[in-house]
């Protein structure tokens, strides 16, 4: 890419754009994901409060009539653009697709459109403060490349179905298919902090999650039975633990541990992470972790290490400018490692719409070798109803 094109892309995207990200919303003062999501550790459907926050604090108000106040905008954040008439049922539809361009302007340029997510979600909730919930999602999603062995290889799948009961505001139990309790749940499923410990878009597991939340601590202890849609010998069984401590009422420091395995491989991973609120939507996220992968009969053992550093700035309501800085050393025995550097822009022009641009530059560091950087960019649209 030449200089002019590089900066034209940046400048183009500094014009109206936006996004809808998650762990970084600590920058708006939300330390716990449970504030806005039914899943206490984030991801999945938003609760009523989360939808109202997405419509007001997160999304731009530039396209509303001047006469609309925040209360009216929040009122229209429900599924049918109004507050639901009953308390026990919620429905949501999500679509996320993007244009992915690898090696732009290079000899091997590849352009693809990927429909990453198209699903419907159903939530049943009962009791005071939604004490009892049943959450399910079903939709179309692309297979990972390459497809996982033993998976039913269907484009249609449920990524989430579980029941949950909160005995108190501090303690709840959740059982079913969920994302694994581990580290920072960043939206980028291709980030090294998700690929190395195997936490990508289709790595959900059936199991039981115990969740504990106070002003100072948040703990998720997750027993995994593996994804039951896989053949038994491929299911990754085990468990994971994530703990976060609140610092100065606005920041979080955490640690995670995961031990899973099947008949062919074992994974032991551990990580430290931090999320920092820099006010008015600006935030820093960081995670560093190590993963030990052992294959059948200990024939092959690899220790890998990853680092994730995400920065978010919110120049004005609805617009986030971010950086994804990642490091991965797949095998600590050799001296090779890669760094991926990705500035991007996320824009929520109005509630229910997220537009996002990510630019990735990946550089390899190998003793005695020097190779050209790899470039990728993606233009993403996300709609939720």
């Amino acid at each position: 890419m030449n200089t002019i094109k590089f900066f034209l892309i940046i400048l183009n995207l500094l014009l109206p754009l936006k996004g809808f990200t998650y762990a970084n919303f600590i920058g708006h003062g939300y330390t716990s994901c449970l504030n806005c999501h039914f899943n206490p550790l984030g991801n999945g459907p938003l609760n009523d409060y989360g939808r109202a926050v997405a419509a007001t604090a997160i999304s731009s108000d530039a396209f509303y009539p001047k006469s609309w106040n925040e209360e009216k905008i929040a009122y229209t954040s429900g599924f049918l653009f109004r507050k639901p008439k009953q308390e026990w049922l919620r429905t949501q539809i999500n679509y996320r697709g993007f244009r992915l361009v690898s090696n732009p302007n290079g000899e091997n340029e590849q352009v693809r459109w990927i429909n990453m997510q198209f699903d419907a979600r159903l939530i049943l909730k009962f009791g005071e403060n939604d004490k009892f919930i049943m959450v399910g999602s079903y939709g179309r999603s692309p297979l990972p490349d390459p497809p996982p062995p033993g998976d039913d290889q269907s484009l249609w799948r449920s990524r989430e179905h579980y029941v949950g009961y909160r005995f108190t505001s501090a303690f709840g139990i959740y059982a079913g298919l969920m994302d694994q309790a581990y580290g920072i749940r960043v939206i980028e499923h291709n980030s090294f902090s998700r690929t190395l410990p195997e936490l990508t878009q289709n790595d959900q597991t059936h199991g039981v999650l115990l969740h504990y939340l106070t002003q100072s601590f948040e703990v998720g202890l997750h027993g995994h039975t593996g994804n039951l849609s896989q053949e038994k010998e491929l299911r990754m069984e085990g468990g994971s633990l994530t703990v976060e401590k609140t610092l100065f009422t606005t920041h979080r420091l955490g640690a995670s541990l995961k031990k899973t395995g099947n008949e062919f491989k074992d994974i032991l991973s551990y990580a430290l992470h931090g999320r920092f609120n820099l006010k008015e939507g600006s935030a820093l996220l960081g995670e560093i972790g190590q993963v030990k992968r052992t294959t059948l009969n200990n024939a092959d053992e690899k220790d890998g290490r990853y680092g994730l550093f995400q920065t978010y700035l919110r120049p004005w309501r609805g617009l986030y400018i971010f950086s994804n800085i990642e490091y991965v050393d797949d095998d600590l025995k050799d001296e090779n490692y890669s760094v991926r550097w990705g500035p991007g822009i996320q824009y929520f022009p109005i509630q229910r719409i997220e537009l996002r641009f990510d630019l990735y530059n990946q550089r390899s560091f190998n003793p005695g070798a020097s190779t050209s950087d790899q470039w990728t960019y993606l233009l993403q649209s996300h709609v939720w109803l």
Partner: protein
Amino acid sequence: MMKWVSVFLILQMSSSVFATSIKKYFKAKEWQKIVDIYQSNKKASFTEKEFGMISEALRNREQFREDISLNIRFIRIYFNSEHSKLMKEIRSGASTDSEQFSDALKHSYWSIINDLAQIIKGIKKKSPEVEKDFKQFQMFSKIMEALEFNEGKTDKLVSNVQSHMIYLEEKIYRFSGSLVFNYISWQSEVNLQGTETAKLLVTNRGYCLGGDAGVENYRYHFFVDGCLLIGSGEINNKDAQPEYQQSNVPSYGLKAGPGASVIVSSSKSRIGLKIPFVYTIQNFEEPSPTSGNNYTVKQKSPLTMQVSLYSRFNLNAWFIQTEIGQYIGNDEIFWGLGFGKSY
């Protein structure tokens, strides 16, 4: 004696002329005409009602300072003792029974504090005059608080004016400086010169120690920054002739240039652009002669220029900063991740 009676009668007559005219123009909302009458007859003796109508006219014509003078004169003429009593109570810290004070006096204070608020909010730059106005405003806010008059409106007014004063303060550009330590990586091109010239790529990594100095206010930061860089690079030409490879080739130099950023949060996190010049020195061993050809390896150019996007995230005086930039005229990229401390 006759002389004094004549003066008295003339004053009475002119006062009644004012009264008729002011009343007429007040009904018609012809504020400027009321102001004109007042300006031509400032020393005339007005009734309480006339004072009220003139005050409203002055406010409508945005002559706030004139309105303050008018109201002070009004208080001195009609409520001097009440005013003195109130001030004495406020100074002594004694509680005030607001019922003891006339409504007309309270309305007059309310007019003055509104005038001061309008004057202060209309000022775009901090000055000794606005400081003086703000002191007066604070005094009248104490009076309003003691009288418990228009409490909600007064609180809102005080909050707005205080915010404006903070804004005026934060608008002022002040010197700022910092020390920064960066982990950096950059690629550069070198020429492998023999019978033909081939381009090779060097991948460097290292550190850059330096800082910046400039001015900033609540919204913008303009600065010059620079750092001394030291690192090493990898270079190879494995797939072509002559085969060439070197590891950990030392590189050192200087990176410096101007920059500007926009501060986007109260934590002083910011995003901006820099245009640094980078001067690096990196000496490569020459490849072994092949088939009688001699080769040399030289930097394409030791001096380059970049445009970079940078951001800084403050946690009090300490900060983390990121930078990614592209060389002008080349395809290569520079990036840096570091931390520093502001002074």
